[in-house]
């Protein structure tokens, strides 16, 4: 109880609220999670390696990481344009567009999943157009990419918006009065100051896409070696009661999200230090 002395607040309830928070956190989150780690440690190293590096699993990593990365890149570009447009310009329908950005976050993933599949199937609203050009979207890796783009968009836009709002317009005006073109102002003044937010949004979208399940499994079709995402393989292993295999793959995915969370925290720390 050493830290109680450091607490200068006169408000009551510190011990109670901290105790309840830690107990609940421990029971609901930390205890079950530690079981995952404990289960992995009971696996032998060679079994672990075999489980996480079989051809089917490696194919799923390639698809999941590849599609998630591409989706995050597309979201970084179009999310930036959308965030910029929504903070800087006034136009009819803007409030509706701004509100709808959160839709992938508020909509249950299975609902998004069947809606996307219907649109991008070869007889769907968008899918039929591409089908005429000989391109199939649903039940191919492109479908996985589409679903992951959908799910990641709000993260980029919502991370960028506050930092674009905070931009000091005077600095832009100063750059222009010194003879910089709009393009130069954008590359040399605006982009560097929102880069930490853009990087954070990109990483959040990427991390979310890596673990996504519901919105992907319908549109992907889950063809072995071709359109199986890693989250789907974990479910398949569980359905076959291969708990060791499912646990091993989960640990790899958890490791990936842990690294991404670390990157986000470091980016924010770096940005805060830069401001000082």
């Amino acid at each position, binding site marked *: 109880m050493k830290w109680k002395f450091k607490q200068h607040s006169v408000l009551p309830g510190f011990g109670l609220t901290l105790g309840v*928070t830690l107990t609940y956190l421990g029971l609901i989150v930390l205890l079950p999670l530690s079981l995952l780690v404990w289960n992995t440690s009971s696996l032998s190293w060679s079994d672990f390696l075999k489980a996480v590096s079989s051809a089917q699993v490696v194919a799923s990593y390639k698809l999941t990481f590849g599609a998630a990365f591409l989706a995050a890149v597309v979201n970084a570009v179009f999310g930036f344009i959308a965030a910029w447009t929504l903070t800087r310009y006034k136009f009819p329908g803007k409030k509706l567009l701004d509100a709808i950005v*959160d839709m992938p976050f508020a909509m249950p993933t299975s609902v998004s999943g*069947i809606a996307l599949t219907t649109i991008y199937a070869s007889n769907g609203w968008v899918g039929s157009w591409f089908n005429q050009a000989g391109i199939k979207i649903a039940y191919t890796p492109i479908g996985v990419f589409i679903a992951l783009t959908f799910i990641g968009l709000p993260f980029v836009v919502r991370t960028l918006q506050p930092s674009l709002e905070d931009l000091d317009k005077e600095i832009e005006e100063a750059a222009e009065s010194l003879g910089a073109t709009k393009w130069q102002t954008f590359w040399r003044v605006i982009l560097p100051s929102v880069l930490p937010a853009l990087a954070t949004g990109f990483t959040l979208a990427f991390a979310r896409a890596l673990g996504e399940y519901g919105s992907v499994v319908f549109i992907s079709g889950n063809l072995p070696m071709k359109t199986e995402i890693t989250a789907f393989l974990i479910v398949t292993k569980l359905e076959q009661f291969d708990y060791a295999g499912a646990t091993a793959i989960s640990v790899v995915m958890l490791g990936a*999200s842990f690294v991404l969370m670390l990157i986000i925290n470091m980016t924010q720390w770096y940005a805060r230090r830069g401001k000082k």
Partner: protein
Amino acid sequence: MTTNRSKRFRERSVPLLLIFITTAFLALFLLMPLAAIFVEAFRKGAQAYFASFNDRYAMSAIRLTLLTAAIAVPMNVVFGVTAAWCIAKFEFPGKNVLITLIDLPFAISPVIAGLIFVLAFGRQTMLGEWMIEHDIKIIFAVPGIVLATIFVTFPFVARELIPLMQEQGTIEEEAAVSLGAGGWDIFWKVTLPNIKWGLLYSVILCNARAMGEFGAVSVVSGHIRGETNTIPLHVETLYAEYSYVAAFSVASLLAFLGLVTLVAKTALEWKTKRKKEGKSISG
């Protein structure tokens, strides 16, 4: 002259182009899936739409989802408010670690969230064996679904309230203490009125996520029709059976809930913005 005019044309055309790209991108990626849900649900008319709910399995899925949310949401609201009070009103070492830990379920794949409960209570563990002997079912039963839902929706209330309560500081509460108010009185009469709209939105969001959770629940439920199928799982079952109208009709319930969440968020932003502007005028 011409260069000047072309420059002005360019200055005007860039915003127009960006507005066009944004509208097209958001319409294609966000509005179209939303529209598709309701178009597909009503494809065979209103009668077929309502007939989808007049079904034993649909009703049992709705009941189970309501039950799950009725347990998970209040628990996470109590936890969220408690955690936010602790983090926003006090300074203590390790606070950032605590915030990161609260965010953890948000960073974990829903499938892995389900897996950890299978590992904890599945029949391969000692605890699992003991439970089979004593006829207690958690996995492939309702308790597992509730646990997985609590885990997945765990951060939402706290995440929403922590920044809000940090922004408001502790001055009003400290004034109440100096006037002799106790902890409960301070919370109900000072803090709660200040956070009520943020709290309301976080409850709506937490509820929408609890009712719509798919991945984690799918892993622990076992998909027993009429017993452990929640609404999102029932949608999946119907879709896999090619009963598209029924699948989209049931899905439209959840889509509607999602829309309510969006409206609540917009209303909250509108309200706080107006409040801030009001403050800046009076101050």
